């Protein structure tokens, strides 16, 4: 049953990838430039394009292979993205779970408002404000970039990169916490309202036992499937944050590609983002199939 579920999910991942490739192909075909196989039919061109993409030939941007360019930038983006995703999931789940359990309290209402406020401010605005406050006025962090000038003499040091990446990571985390918090809080509210929780309480189990053994376990399940959506949200926000912090990742590359009207580069960025989201989706499915026993026996509707 689990194998069948996973095969189904692989099929959808492949479908998503082919649709994305179809869209980028449709756009690229309209851009006047020399393109392999232009003498053949559209269908044949599409397959040539897919073949090239799978081979790792993503075209050239000003003479440089697109995939190589993106690969190098991806590394820098992940330095920010991975800690930010982990932190926002951790904090969002903890805060959401706590206030979902203590729903209706005064504190719950104010936290909800703070989250609403955080979500309403665009990411570049958070970035600008954080630089003004923490870098400019308090002088706690650098103004931007990814390493100090001293790296020219002393070489790249990890602590220096960490120092430069701290504020972008904090900004991205602040920007994305409300999303995970809302999901977790709602998930808690839904679970607490279930009949089996009432049963557990009626049996006379302690509140603590009900929370940890019944509510949390079940409330966490939908969170797993929401991780890919959160990733897509973060990738979008990351574009703005990298621009403001001059962080040399995919986001800044996107900005340069737009300014240069470089479609082959943008195509590469869309493809890599699609791949990132597909990988996130698939890992979530894999994880989900492990923790939800209903998939093993094929009972659940998923």
């Amino acid at each position, binding site marked *: 049953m689990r194998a069948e579920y996973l095969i189904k999910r692989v099929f*959808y*991942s492949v*479908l*998503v990838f082919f*649709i*994305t490739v179809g*869209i*980028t192909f449709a*756009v690229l075909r*309209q851009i006047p430039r020399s393109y392999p196989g232009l003498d053949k039919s559209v269908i044949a061109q599409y397959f040539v394009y897919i073949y090239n993409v799978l081979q790792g030939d993503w075209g050239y941007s000003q003479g440089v292979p697109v995939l190589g360019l993106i690969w190098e930038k991806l590394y820098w983006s992940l330095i920010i993205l991975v800690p930010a995703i982990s932190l926002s999931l951790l904090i969002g789940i903890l805060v959401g779970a706590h206030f979902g359990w203590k729903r*209706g309290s005064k504190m719950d*209402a104010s936290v*909800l408002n703070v989250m*609403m*406020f955080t*979500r*309403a*401010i*665009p*990411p*570049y*605005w958070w970035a*600008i404000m954080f630089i003004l406050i923490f870098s400019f006025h308090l002088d706690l962090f650098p103004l931007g970039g990814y390493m100090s000038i001293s790296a020219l003499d002393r070489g790249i040091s990890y602590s220096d990169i960490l120092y430069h990446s701290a504020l972008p990571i904090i900004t991205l985390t602040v920007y994305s916490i409300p999303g995970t918090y809302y*999901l977790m809080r*709602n*998930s808690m*509210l*839904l679970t607490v*309202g279930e009949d089996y929780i009432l049963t557990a309480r009626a049996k006379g189990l302690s509140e603590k036992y009900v929370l940890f053994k019944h509510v949390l376990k079940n409330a966490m399940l*939908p969170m797993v499937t929401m991780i*890919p*959506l959160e990733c*897509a949200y973060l*990738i*979008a926000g990351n*574009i*703005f944050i990298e*621009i*403001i912090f001059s962080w040399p990742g995919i986001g800044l590359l*996107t*900005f340069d590609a*737009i*300014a240069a*009207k470089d*479609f082959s580069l*943008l*195509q590469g*960025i*869309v493809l890599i*983002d*699609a791949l*990132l*989201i*597909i990988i996130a*989706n698939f890992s979530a499915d894999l994880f989900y199939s492990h923790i939800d026993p209903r998939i093993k026996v094929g009972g659940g509707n998923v």
Partner: protein
Amino acid sequence: MYKYRKIGLVIGISVLAAFVLIAIFSPVLAPYDPYKITGAPLEKPNRNHLLGTNNMGQDIFSRLVCGTRATLIVGFGGALLMVLIGTCVGIISGYYGGKIDELLTRAVDVVMALPMFPLLIMLAMFLKPSILTLIFLMGILGWTGCARIIRSQVLLFSESNFISGVKAIGASDIYIMVKHVFPNILPLVLVKFVFATQDCMLMEVGLGFLGLGDPFMIDWGQMINRAYIKGGFALGLWWWLLPPGVSIAFLSLAVASVGHSFENEINPRLRRMIL
């Protein structure tokens, strides 16, 4: 908490109404032609120029007032299209069930997994950014969340007795969907619409900031973009950078506050559905 939300609703709607009025009467409210050079470059806020001037000597206050339109139009237009598609798909999927439901749910899954924002950037650049293109693209890329929630609500709802009753009388499917299903999910649709409006507004300003705004309109995103690129941030020219950012933050907050109040209003019945 209930009373508190009500205050939020009143404030939110008032701020929103104020922005709509400003957008409608922007030609009257703006003291100068927003495209004309009316002062020295980079004047600080003074009596002639309420918010100073930008690097070209254009009046920032006039540009700010005239920029309200683009954000509001794309916000409401994009949200309308999103919710329209999402509601139609959700109702059809939830009402018919079976094979149709299976197919539409899978379609939602696939569209949801596309990298929306990068695609939006590439397609907006490809189709030449304009107000209508942005509305169209946001609509066709962003309807999935709405469809999913509406579907699950309709699914619960179409099993209820009175729908079978109406069916027994011999009402057509279209009639039932329009006259019975839709009015019952309208509150949820409204909540989705408000939040979609917030998303579209933020995306519009974001795209403007990336240099993908409508070139024939003034918008806040392009104002932030210009101020940022020309060094307004690095040089500390706050009157250049601050106004458009504060405006979009205010507008977005007002819309969010209206959305949360609506959500709270329909909570007793629908809380289980809002995920």
